[in-house]
Structures are given as structure tokens and as C-alpha cells.
């Protein structure tokens, strides 16, 4: 990506890209890629890394018969090696109107999510993996299946550039659809504020995990939403509908925070339970640091495996 591109795609910060360039985007589980790459595959292959011996079964490829063992013991063993494959990174970005919310401390949640998604797509393609983009939105949302060529990256970035959050969220339906649509194991990263019913949402996330995808969840929040500090009655206008509500924040603050925190805690807990990588992101954080932490922790987790 040259300077011109980053100028075109304002959400890509060269400094962040440079800062993250040395950090690999890894999957925590075996992936099913189309070509060989840096990531573990569930299949045996021809890499240099020994995997296991197993007894010969008629029909096995004789080329992988361990001749030395046969010569020494007169037994037929197959020598198998790990396969390395590429990563298919599916970025799912919530483009509902609620993501357009911007507090006074940072960019809008959508802008923040777009930067994260664009940067990750760039990193993935940069390390030879495929990146795809799916959007959760009401109309004409782009569906870009994962590909590894730079042209595709350009497409993704263009789509991100032009995307405008609009309408009510359709995240539940979209996630279910994508869980079915993305056939092979992939790294699925969801960017959303998850302002929807929690139980159906958890069903969606579980669906994705059930398909053996490596699921990462970026829960985007604004500081203002988290703290709810207002001192005078306001007219709260819903971003996703014409509904508005006049209320005195001081009076409802306790209840609001209780409900809000319960929602966050439950989502975090559920993700932990079904081994999804949950990240709560506040828009006043540094995007570079958020991604660095994400990548580093994943690298550590994989190393620990």
C-alpha cells in the first residue's frame, strides 16, 4: 500500500500500519485455506514439521511410506507432516445507524470499526492471507468473500470508504446467514456495538463457533454510552428509528447503567464460554494499541498452544 492509497482511504493510518507490520495475524485454531501458508491446517500435508506415524492402510500414498522403518522393522508405517495453509479472514462490520454514534471523546463507532477492519484486512493480505468483508446493514451492503490478491484488498478498502451506516441493525439474520455461507474454517471478526437482544445474538455467535470458525468479537462502545453523565433533561433521539424520549438522565442513570453493564458482562461471559475472542473497544482508545494488543495476545495464545 503506497502513500496515495492511504491518502485515498483516510481511515488507514500509515503509522498504525507501520507499527503493526511486524505483528502476525494468526488464528488460534487450524484453518482451512486454499493454498499453503503460515497457518496450521486440520489436514496433513508436506511441510517440514513432523506430525505423526500411523499404520499403513491400503490406498495410502506409497510415497509417504517411511522406508527406513520398513527396512528396519519390516512394518509399514506412514510418516505424516503438518500441513500449512493460508488464513481466510472474514471481517463482518455492523453498518447499522447506531454505529454512527459519536460521543465527544472520539470518532464514531463506525469510523473506529472501519479503521480496525481496514487495517486488519491490510495486514491479512500483506501476510499472504485472504481477507473478505461482509456488512450488516439494511441495503446494498457489500459482500466480498475472502481473497488474497491485493486487488481484492483495494476493493475491500474502497467498500469501507464508501460505506455509510444506515437503518436498523440486521446483525442477527446476517450472522446466521454468514455462518452458513462461510463453509470452511476461517477467522471471523465481528465489529459491532451489539445493541440488540442478547440471547438471539449469542445464538448467532455460537452458530459461527459451531462452524469451527475462529471468532473474534470487537464490541465497540462510546465513553458517553458507558458513563451516561448528563445533568439536564434531554430529548434522546433514537438513531435507528424516529422514536425520541424526553427524560431526566439523573433519574434513570442508575437503571441505565445497570442494564448496560449487565449486557456487557453477559456478552463477555458468553464469549468466554464458547471460546470466542471478545474485545471491548472504547472509541477514545488508540486504534493502533487496540490492534497491537489483539494481535499480540493472539500470537501469545497460539504460542501457548
Amino acid at each position, binding site marked *: 500500500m503506497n502513500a496515495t492509497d492511504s491518502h485515498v482511504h483516510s481511515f488507514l493510518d500509515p503509522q498504525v500500519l507501520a507499527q503493526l507490520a511486524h505483528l502476525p495475524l494468526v488464528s488460534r485454531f487450524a484453518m482451512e485455506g486454499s493454498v499453503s501458508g503460515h497457518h496450521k491446517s486440520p489436514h496433513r500435508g508436506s511441510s517440514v514439521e513432523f506430525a505423526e506415524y500411523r499404520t499403513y492402510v491400503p490406498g495410502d500414498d506409497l510415497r509417504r511410506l517411511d522406508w527406513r522403518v520398513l527396512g528396519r522393522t519390516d512394518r509399514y508405517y506412514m510418516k505424516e507432516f503438518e500441513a500449512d495453509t493460508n488464513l481466510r479472514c472474514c471481517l463482518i462490520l455492523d453498518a447499522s445507524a447506531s454505529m454512527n454514534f459519536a460521543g465527544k471523546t472520539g470518532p464514531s463507532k463506525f469510523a473506529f470499526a472501519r479503521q480496525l477492519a481496514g487495517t486488519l484486512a491490510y495486514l491479512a493480505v500483506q501476510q499472504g492471507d485472504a481477507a473478505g468483508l461482509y456488512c450488516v446493514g439494511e441495503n446494498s451492503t457489500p459482500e466480498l468473500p475472502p481473497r488474497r490478491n491485493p486487488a481484492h484488498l483495494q476493493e475491500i478498502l474502497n467498500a469501507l470508504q464508501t460505506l455509510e451506516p444506515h437503518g436498523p441493525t440486521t446483525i442477527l439474520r446476517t450472522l446466521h446467514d454468514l455462518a452458513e455461507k462461510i463453509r470452511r474454517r476461517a477467522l471471523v471478526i465481528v465489529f459491532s456495538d451489539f445493541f440488540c437482544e442478547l440471547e438471539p445474538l449469542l445464538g448467532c455467535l455460537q452458530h459461527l463457533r459451531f462452524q469451527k470458525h475462529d471468532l473474534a468479537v470487537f464490541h465497540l462502545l*462510546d465513553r*458517553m454510552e458507558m458513563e451516561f*453523565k*448528563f445533568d439536564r433533561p*434531554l430529548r*434522546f433521539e433514537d438513531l435507528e428509528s424516529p422514536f425520541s424520549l424526553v*427524560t431526566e438522565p439523573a433519574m*434513570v442513570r442508575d*437503571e441505565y447503567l445497570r442494564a448496560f453493564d449487565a449486557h456487557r458482562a453477559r456478552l463477555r461471559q458468553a464469549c468466554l464460554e464458547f471460546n470466542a475472542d471478545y474485545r471491548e473497544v472504547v472509541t477514545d482508545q488508540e486504534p493502533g494499541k487496540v490492534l497491537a494488543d489483539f494481535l499480540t495476545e493472539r500470537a501469545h495464545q497460539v504460542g501457548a498452544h
Partner: protein
Amino acid sequence: MTFLQPYLLWALPLVLVPVIIHLINRLRHKPQPWAAMMFLLQATRASTSHAKLRQWLVLLFRTLAVLALILFIARPLAGGWLGWTLSPAPDVIIIVLDRSASMESRLAGQTITKREQAVKLLAEAAREFQDKSHLVLLDSATRIPQQLASAKSLLEPTLTGPTDTAADLPTLLQIAHNWLVENRAGAAELWVASDLQRSNWLPDDERWKTVTNQLGKLPQGIRVRLLAFDDDREPNTSATLAEVFRRARPDGAELNLALDLARNVQPGSAPAHFPLSLTLNGVKSQTELDMDGAALRWRHKVDLGAAKGLGWGTLALPADANARDNAAYFVFGSDSILRAAVVSDQPALIRNAQLAALSPATRQPAEVLAPVAWAERTGSDAALLIWQAPLPDAAGEKRLRGFIEEGGAVLFLPPGRTDTGKFLGFGWAEAQPASADKPFKVAKWGQQEGPLAKTDEGLSLPLVELEISRRQPITDGDEGKRQMAKGESAEAGEAAKTSPALIASSGTALASFADGSPLLTRRALGKGQFFFCATLPHEEWSSLGDGPVLVPMLQRLLQTGARRLNQETMVACGELSALDRAKQWTSADGSTGKDIALHAGVYRSGERLLAVNRPGAEDDRTLLEPAGAKKLLGTLPLQLLQERTARSDALQGEIWRLFLIGMLAFLFLEAWLVLPPKKRLPDGSAPELAPAA
């Protein structure tokens, strides 16, 4: 509730200002785009009931605060008497004050009298209105409406001081009505303060209907507020002079007094013992008196010795609950020569009466005249006329009426034959003989007063021993005519004409036979009285001529007729004739500040002495029920307050303080409710300002 500044009530719609501000504020709330609406809705739902209640309360308190402010500025008056009407101050307030003697009773357990309390309360109540309304005092004694400069004037004794007069409420209301009409007054209120004494209110009077109708028809609207002092529990004894006359004796003269005492005690209570002071021509003496029961007639004789000429005196009881009804005043004159005249065309029948009616001074029997002779005679010095002849014709009747109206007494005796003539509706039926073995007997007669009363020694006249063998029943033609007018048959009318029992409706039967028909009837006319007696004092008719009944009866009738010859010496307070009122009177006992029109006492004008006593009806303590008073006032709007205590603020007072305190309380509550709940910020930081949209 009444307001001193009622026009400020037009500002009442201002109570909507908080509501309007609230609505405007709702529109002016800063919009805040919000994504996490689901949590906000959830929170609002949880705290909505409390928050809404609080908001409504805040709005309510703001509205009430404004309301209290407006009412406070409008200077409301309220009290039990003025009530809670939203009427403005009236144009005219006519204060009708009962100044009768009965209003001088002390209030139960108090040291002030009903009148004093009434004046105090009325002055207090009127003070609030003196700038807005014309105050007019109409008191029962003078009956002249007087405009008052200020409410304070009510307290002046010359206007509202005690009197010994009686009150006449229908007349007062009529005067009030006339005043309102003559002065073209606007909306008016009548403030009536009275003790609801029946003799003052005259509930049977026909004028009530007229006056309430007239007041009700006034276009400006009349409201009546009645301050009733219908509580009469304090023990009280009243003294009234029943009789006073000077009797000549061989060795000089004596004064006969009869004093009626009445006290309002329950029957069976302990006998009272009190001193009675008698003042005679300024010389005071005292006697002790025992009184058992509720009423007593006390008779007393005072030896006047050889003293001649006019004299006066006072009988007084010690002070009790009502100081005005303890004294009785009298004046006695020199002996006048009382004579009787008999007009008869059958002098033989009337001989006994002629003898019995002898003049006490000259001991001469009565003069006998034929009817023709009497008609021709000009003027008469007789006090009593005994008429035993057919009833006179029109000219004769006129003459007789003149005689009675001057104060004379006339006793009509049966002519003994058919007589179709009438005298003021009275006439004679056919003579009735009794059966030989069963003469007519007298069954009952008035023993308390009148010509057949008990003697001074308390002995009854022996009427029960009278044997009447022949009588000529007395008829009342008016009664017969009334019966006819009711559409009854001529026979019934005839029967009524001949039925003596019907007489009592227009005359008072002083004695009646066992069958109910009257023996002796009396009717007042002008200053005098006339009597009809149904039998003759002759042996063919009855044993009346024997004397024990006839002599005292005729002598008393002579005394009754003496009024014709004497100048009036006794008068009820407030009933002074216009002629006498024009004279200059001074109090005979030398006390000053007494007004003959208002106060009882003995007054002197030149050679003439006049005793003024409170009207006898004032001693009748029968009270009207408040409901009865309400009924009398008919459809007039009435506010009644029965005043039994001496609280000075009972009628009304300005209550703006209440509204001021109310307003402050509402504002305080409102402020407390709108205070932001600081404790809900656990970090202790002040809430940030809402971000700019």
C-alpha cells in the same frame, strides 16, 4: 370566602402558567442522538412511575403556589358567618341590630351581654368592609337607617347602647327595604343580629310574606346574614308591674301594687330569696321576697297617708343575667271622681247594677238615662257606661265608639227582648230560659286579671254560686259572615250566628257557661274596652244582682274606665305618642343620659309624670327556632351563625396569611422535588453539562 380585591381573581388563569412553561420546556429540550436506546427505555420503564409522579407533583405544587399567590393578593376573608361564597363585597351592608331589652341578657358563662357581643362581632366583621361598602345601621329602637362613617361608629353607645324597647323585625326589614329602594342601592347584605325572641320576630305576622317577597324581588340581590343569640341559659328573674292604683281610705290613701315576677328556672328548683327595693317619690325601702316556682304575683300596699298629688316609684330586683328587666316604674295620680252612667229603657231591671256601680268617691249610685236622653246629652264625665237597651243605631254607635276609644268602659247587658242591632259585629240572640230545676252555671272564668280576677286577698269571686235562669247569648256577626263566605249553607250560617261558642275568635271570653257559651266577653277598642254580659242582675234573670260578683266587677270596670278621665301615666318604652315625644322630658329620679324614647324610667315634663316601662312582651322569653327564622325569610339567601361563645374572630377574618404560608410551602416542596438527586452519582462528581448537539 369573600375577597376585598375581587377583581384580582381575574388573574386566576395565571395558574396555567406553570403548565404552559412545562409544555414549552418539553419542546425546548435539547435533542441528543442516542444509540443505546434499548437500555434507556429499559431504565425509563423501571423508574417511570416514580419519575412521572414526581413530575406531576412538581407541576401541581407550582400551580398551587401561583394559585395561593393570587388568592393572597386578593385578600380573602373567611369565617363561619361570612361563609365561603365567592361574592364580592356588597355595595351596602345594612346592620339590623336588635336593641330590645331582651338583648341585654348575659351570654352563658360570659360577663358581656348579647347586644354587646353582637355589636363587637358586627364591628369586627364590618371593619373589613368599611372601605368597600356603605355601612348602614338600622336599630330596633330608633328604626331610622343611619349611615356609618366607619365600623368603629358601631361601638358608640348612642347608636347601639342598651334600651328598654321591644323590637319588631318585620317592620325593620320593611324599613330596610324602603331604604334600599329610596337610595337605589346596589348589591346589599342585611346583617341581622337578634336573640330570635318570638315577640320581636312575630312569626305569625302577615307582613313577613310581603317584606320577604319585596326583598326577594329587588333586582340587585339581597343576602341575609343572621347572627342569632338563641341561648338563654343564664338564670334570670324579670319584674313587671301588673297593677298600680291609689285607693282612697277614710284616713288617707293607700297605694296598691301588684308586681309580676317570672324567672326562667326549671320547675322544681330551689325557691329563691331576694331583696326587693321599692322607691317611692325618691325614698328607698327594701323588703325580702321568697319566690317558689317560675312565676309569682306579689301584691303590696303602701300607706300614702294624707299625701296628695302625683307620685312616682320604682320596684327593683337585684342584678341578674339581664339588668334591664329588673325594674318596674310607676306613677300614681290623685283620686279622680269615677262615675258610672246607666243607659236603660227598663230601669227596674237594672236597679242592682245602678247601685253596685256607685262612685267610690261620692258614694252616689250611678245615674240612669234613657237612650234618647243619652243621645241628646253632649259630653259625659262617666268612666263606665252600662248599656241595657237595644244596641244603638249608626249615630249612637259612633258616639259609643268615641267614648270607648277615649279610654272609657262600656258594659252591654241584654235588652231582654229581640234585638237585631249590632255593635262592631256583636249582637244579641234570642233570650233562653233555663229549665226550672237546672239553672245555667258558670264553668270557668279568668281569675288572673280582668273584672273577675281574684281579690287582693287571693280569694276567688263566687261565680260558681251564680244561678242563672235566663240568658241572652252574645253573637258575633263577623264570625257568622265569615262562615257564610266559606260557602256553607244559610242554615249553618244561622247556626253559627246563634252559636255563642264562636264569640271567642274576636272577643275574649272572660267567663263561660258549662256549655261553652260566654257569660262575659271583652274587646279592646282604642284606649278603652267594651264588655258584653249574657245575663241581667235581676232576680228574674240570675242571682248576679246579689252583689258578691256584681260589685267587684263593676268597681273594677269603673277603674278600667278611669283611663278616660286621667291623663296617661304609664306607657311602654318605644310606644310614646307623637304628641308626648315632642315634649321635653327629664328623668324624675335625677339620673342623666336617659332618653324617654329608649329607656325605662319615670320622666317629668312640667307637672306631668310619665312612667315608661319596657313592653310586657319583652319578658316573654319564648325564642324562635333558627329553622323558624329561616322559614320566615323565605327564599332570601341566608347565612346563619348561632353565636354561643364570645370568640371575637368567629365571624370572619382576613386569611391571607394562610395563603402566603401555603404559597411558601408549595414553593419549598417544589424546590425539594426538583433538586437533582446528588447521591446517585457515586463518584461524587458533579454531573457534566450535556454535550452540545
